[in-house]
């Protein structure tokens, strides 16, 4: 399960949203699913069941880590939490700007982030399969 923060106040939130889409629509459509954070927090049964049943990766824009906190508070556990800020530090040349429309740097940063998350998703699935075969 992929839970982005989609924060509207900063470009980082836009990057988190874009990365989540890249992951669930392009990079790993068969093995990932988006869960809307607000549905989860407000008690949507389907959203809650999804995060309880499957490992969850959160994508937060900044270090306030709203998605990670709220997934935990809603009964899920965060298999891995990402913060766009940390990924930006590793790709300093990809400065994100814009919220309604991300600039080129932001788009590329979202791709870089989606790539990092894809590797984690593959690991989590491999671990899960190994557990089932054991």
């Amino acid at each position, binding site marked *: 399960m992929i839970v982005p923060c989609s924060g509207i106040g900063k470009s980082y939130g836009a990057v988190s949203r874009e990365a989540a889409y890249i992951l669930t629509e392009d990079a790993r459509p068969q093995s990932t699913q988006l869960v809307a954070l607000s549905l989860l927090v407000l008690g949507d049964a389907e959203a809650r069941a999804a995060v309880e049943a499957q490992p969850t990766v959160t994508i937060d824009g900044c*270090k306030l880590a709203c998605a990670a906190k709220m997934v935990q508070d809603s009964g899920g556990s965060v298999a891995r939490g990402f913060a766009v800020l940390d990924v930006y530090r590793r790709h300093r040349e990809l400065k994100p700007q814009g919220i309604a429309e991300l600039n080129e740097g932001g788009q590329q940063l979202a791709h870089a982030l989606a790539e990092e998350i894809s590797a984690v998703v593959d690991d989590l699935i491999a671990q899960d399969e190994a557990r089932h075969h054991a």
Partner: protein
Amino acid sequence: MPDYLETTVDKFIFKVATDRYYSAEGVWALVEGDRIRIGMTDFVQQRNGDITFAVVRSEGTALEAGDEVAAIETIKANVSLASPVSGTVAEVNPAMEMSPEVANQDPYGEGWLVVVQARDWPGDRDSLLDPRAYFELMKGQAEEEAKKL
């Protein structure tokens, strides 16, 4: 834990710790014997946004009041912070290298920048603002910025 003066502009809450001095540019100076701990105010960190990188003057650097003590980069701005005191950098916050966002999370505590062995604190102090004076200045700045948005 210090006490705070606090004001709210729109949805932003700005705090000023009452146990230290301030430059008009938003750098605080906390007296610790003959050493002065320096950091940025809550207003400065909120105005500039999440800190991605911070470059801080190294230990042993001699500073005059007004010299750059740290260069902060956020996605909104590159900010140069001037030292409010003269002296020698005695300690540098190690968090500034890998986790400078601590200055966003705790600007008056764990987010300190450097500690300076002061050369002329009484002289430097005369040019600084007390908490109430900085609070009034900061409030005005915050309200002006809110009007621009």
